[in-house]
């Protein structure tokens, strides 16, 4: 097994900075590239025809209450409509919560989907699996993460990984079932790369990607040459896969040594004013880093707004007086302002750089929250209705797709299921869902999402 330095790290649900180097090694032990079909070689996917080249998802772990944010019901009884008031956006007829004033000014770019729902349980992990993969599944039948699918279909376009998750993977959100942030049967080469650090910290440095102490450039170069030779042997042995892009090993080396990598991770190169505009917090700086990564060749970035729901201020507003004691105050003072600032900064920044037309931004969450406020002043999990939204790329903004009933309890019209959202993202990125198959278990070609795109979005 190849080691760079003396780090020993296993690869399970994700790849850390250090263990990324060993992803390739794990594959090398078997001496085989993925035996699946080469999509691009088969002509099923043409990246040049992709309507959207990049995708950023902002995942609001814990899930905001739809009635308190993007699907307000001011005419409903007090114990349903909640504390906050709606404000008019720049699109007539679309109101959102008063605590998103910046977003209200760019609603013409945003398509709200107000009739999302699913019926497979109210745990966070259920919702995460649906929204990260488009499937529900258990540990014995893992399905690939959205970013892994995009990585598998299009591959990397620079030395940076094709799919990244910032600032870290989702941890404990209640049950020990999968969250959906894994490559599953697509293999280790398509595992999302977890940043595993907090870009809001002043001591966050790209130096973390540097070789461990004692690993000289000479040793790195020697190993690179050795791996190149192995790659050559492998290519000769595998005629069907000679068009495969670079292996995980060379990607790992590239990641370690490329100046592009150092640039991408160094937020110090951004103007202070822009860093302020995103918000000097973990989420805001992660959104800024997402833009930098996309700009430098990463195709897909997911930013997790929180990695747990316990003992922190987050969207999981149970108001339980214990470890889940989030209330309206957390929404008003911290969460809504933080999201409003980072999300709108990201949209503005991409637009200023001429990147918004090439990048779809998706704001996703696990479920909604109960229409009736609980006895402690909070709201609990509610997968029967919620709102997520998309913008950028060729998404038609300034519209609401679907609606809920008078109390936000159930879809009233155009009910939308999670796989339709993922199918829409794939469709927007130029992936033909009819002809592009994934290598399923046992390399059996399978359709990777059982849904059609939401046509109104385009």
């Amino acid at each position: 097994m190849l080691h760079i330095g003396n780090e020993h790290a296993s690869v399970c649900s994700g790849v850390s900075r250090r263990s990324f180097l060993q992803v390739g090694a794990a594959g090398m032990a078997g001496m085989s590239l993925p035996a699946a079909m080469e999509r691009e070689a088969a002509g099923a996917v043409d990246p040049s025809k992709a309507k959207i080249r990049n995708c950023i998802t902002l995942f609001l772990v814990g899930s905001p209450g739809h009635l308190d944010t993007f699907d307000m019901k001011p005419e409903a009884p007090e114990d349903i409509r909640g504390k906050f008031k709606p404000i008019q956006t720049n699109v007539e007829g679309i109101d959102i919560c008063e605590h998103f004033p910046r977003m209200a000014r760019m609603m013409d770019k945003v398509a709200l989907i107000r009739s999302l729902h699913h019926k497979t349980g109210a745990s966070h992990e259920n919702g995460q699996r649906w929204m990260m993969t488009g499937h529900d599944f258990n540990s014995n039948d893992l399905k690939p993460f959205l970013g892994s699918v995009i990585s598998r279909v299009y591959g990397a376009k620079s030395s940076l990984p094709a799919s990244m998750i910032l600032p870290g993977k989702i941890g404990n959100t209640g049950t020990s079932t999968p969250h959906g942030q894994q490559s599953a049967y697509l293999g280790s080469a398509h595992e999302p790369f977890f940043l595993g650090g907090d870009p809001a910290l002043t001591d966050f440095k790209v130096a973390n990607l540097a070789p461990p102490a004692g690993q000289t450039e000479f040793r790195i170069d020697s190993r690179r040459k050795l791996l190149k030779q192995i790659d050559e042997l492998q290519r000769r042995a595998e005629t069907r896969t000679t068009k495969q892009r670079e292996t995980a090993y060379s990607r790992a080396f590239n990641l370690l040594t490329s100046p592009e990598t150092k640039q991408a991770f160094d937020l110090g190169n951004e103007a202070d004013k822009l860093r302020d505009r995103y918000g000097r917090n973990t989420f805001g700086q992660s959104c800024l880093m997402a833009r930098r990564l996309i700009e430098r060749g990463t195709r897909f970035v997911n930013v997790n707004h929180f990695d747990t729901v316990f003992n922190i201020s987050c969207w999981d507003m149970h108001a339980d007086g214990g470890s889940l004691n989030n209330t309206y105050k957390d929404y008003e003072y911290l969460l809504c302002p933080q999201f409003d600032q980072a999300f709108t900064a990201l949209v503005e920044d991409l637009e200023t750089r001429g990147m918004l037309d090439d990048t779809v931004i998706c704001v996703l969450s696990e479920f909604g929250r109960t229409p009736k406020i609980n006895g402690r002043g909070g709201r609990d999990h509610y997968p029967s209705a919620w709102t997520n939204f998309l913008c950028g790329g060729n998404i038609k903004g300034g519209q609401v797709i679907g609606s809920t009933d008078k109390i936000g309890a159930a879809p009233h019209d155009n009910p939308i299921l999670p796989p339709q959202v993922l199918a829409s993202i794939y469709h927007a990125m130029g992936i033909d869902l009819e002809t592009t198959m994934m290598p399923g278990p046992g390399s059996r070609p399978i359709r990777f999402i059982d849904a059609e795109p939401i046509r109104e979005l385009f």
Partner: protein
Amino acid sequence: MDQKFEGTPKAELSLQGRKVTRSEVTNDWGSQLRWKVARNGKEVATASARVESTFESPEKEAGKYEVVLQMFKYVNYKKDKDGNYTESKFIDISNSVSYTI
């Protein structure tokens, strides 16, 4: 991973008549930004300061008014039995300006 915040936010206020203007906030944590209005040393109102950079208090009662810019400082999520934060709180991030009615 709880949210981390970088630096200490700062802004400058200036006064023309009763109209207060704020500079941009440096080291902006991105949490709630508000005007705090006090009359004769006692808080009488707060108002959101996130979108607009100018503010004129609607308060008309006679007295000495002080206006300062505040931002919410998140330390942790802990609250007392009445739901008030025990450690997180709003802090002043600017100079205060004053006028008398």
